[in-house]
């Protein structure tokens, strides 16, 4: 009850149920924004249990959700102007699809929560609407056997729920398909960038330190001039793997994500080298340094692109394992070789 988005409560035969509105306020939207930037993402959770959206009665539909607040907010926002019960499962603050994969959004948790919320007292019907992407964790026939409630799989996207419910629980064209549109891919970019930059911050001190030994000037001035450029090279590698690759994903050549990530990596490496050589305050890059950057930037970009498989909606574990068998050794070789070339170029 004592949560900022709860407004009032509804009296039911199973006790008081906290009420919520479908309209999201500034605080809800700010929360979503922060999570997209990886701020408090693993702690963005609500209390599991039954909630009343609007003014539901014993005949209102029951929708199942996860206790990741973004999942819950997307659901209630989609149900504007409707009365419904929302039963929130305890998924440790993980979204429906991922939690279903882990089994925390699962048959056991659903039947346990139906029981503990007293749902059978609150509604007259015996039907719950489960998001389709919850199906990897839920066995519909098992739930019916264990709880007496029939599972109806709703659409993939919460936004399609009104149409789905109004057409007698029938999924229209496309409602059962998980897409991966440019907008969907872009929304995942900030979290990936933040994670990559955290790793970069650990490497940068070493990069600046080594750069101090470059050229003929003073140590500090060299560290800043050469190190600054090296940092730019690494930032461009992150941009290639975490931004350009996701945006251009459907059009980049290759099926393996590592392969897709190589093309933006090589492009960024060439761009970087031309910027490097156009800078008059620095001596032109020697052949060792010129060879180092494409290896480092393309290698890092391919690695980051490979890790985007987990964000994507169309990769299989068998495929990822097949890709990793050749891609991981290739990435390690490229980056290690590039690093050796770059460090050698400083000291020779």
């Amino acid at each position: 009850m004592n949560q900022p988005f709860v407004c009032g409560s509804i009296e039911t035969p199973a006790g008081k149920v906290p009420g919520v509105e479908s309209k999201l306020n500034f605080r809800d939207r700010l929360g979503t924004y922060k999570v997209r930037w990886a701020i408090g993402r693993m702690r963005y959770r609500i209390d599991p249990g039954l909630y009343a959206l609007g003014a539901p009665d014993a005949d209102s539909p029951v929708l199942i959700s996860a206790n990741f607040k973004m999942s819950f907010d997307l659901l209630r926002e989609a149900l504007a102007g409707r009365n419904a019960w929302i039963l929130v499962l305890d998924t440790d603050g993980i979204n429906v699809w991922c939690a279903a994969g882990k089994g925390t959004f699962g048959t056991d948790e659903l039947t346990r929560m139906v029981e503990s919320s007293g749902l059978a007292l609150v509604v007259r019907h015996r039907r719950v609407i489960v998001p389709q992407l919850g199906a990897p964790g839920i066995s519909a026939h098992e739930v019916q056997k264990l709880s007496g409630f029939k599972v109806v799989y709703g659409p993939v996207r919460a936004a399609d729920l009104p149409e789905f419910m109004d057409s007698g629980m029938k999924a229209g064209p496309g409602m059962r398909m998980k897409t991966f549109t440019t907008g969907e891919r872009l929304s995942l970019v900030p979290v990936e960038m933040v994670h990559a930059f955290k790793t970069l911050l650990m490497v940068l001190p070493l990069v600046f330190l080594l750069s101090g030994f470059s050229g003929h000037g003073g140590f500090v001035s060299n560290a800043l001039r050469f190190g600054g450029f090296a940092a730019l090279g690494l930032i461009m590698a992150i941009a290639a793997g975490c931004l350009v690759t996701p945006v251009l994903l459907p059009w980049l050549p290759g099926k393996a994500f590592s392969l897709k990530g190589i093309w933006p990596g090589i492009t960024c490496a060439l761009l970087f080298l031309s910027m490097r050589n156009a800078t008059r305050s620095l001596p032109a890059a020697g052949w060792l340094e010129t060879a180092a950057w494409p290896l480092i930037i393309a290698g890092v970009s391919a690695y980051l692109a490979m890790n985007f498989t987990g964000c994507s909606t169309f990769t299989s574990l068998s495929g990822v394992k097949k890709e990793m068998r050749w891609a991981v050794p290739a990435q390690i070789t490229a980056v290690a070789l590039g690093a050796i070339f770059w460090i050698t170029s400083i000291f020779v």
Partner: protein
Amino acid sequence: MGKLVYIKDVVTLQLDGEGCTGCAMCATVCPRAVFEISHSKARVADRDSCIECGACALNCPAGAVSVRAGVGCATAVINSMLGIKTSGCDCSIDQYELNEKIPAKGGGCC
């Protein structure tokens, strides 16, 4: 833009046509439109689109579908190999592979 498809000829999806009762639950839960129902039987119509999430196997009342379910996530594979338990979205591959008795779990990871 057509359907995005990952590496071909790798997935572990198996459908036992004999056991299928034609209830169409597999086609309902599949987010990749892998199944087609014709003449009251399910058929794997687009095998390479399968992401091995395991929803079909878990929701087949006849037990006619099987798949080695898991998350198609390189980070999870790396974390499992390095023994990292708590990072990012916390998926691990071991949970599927060590528990082969649990019929089907899986899904897209965060």
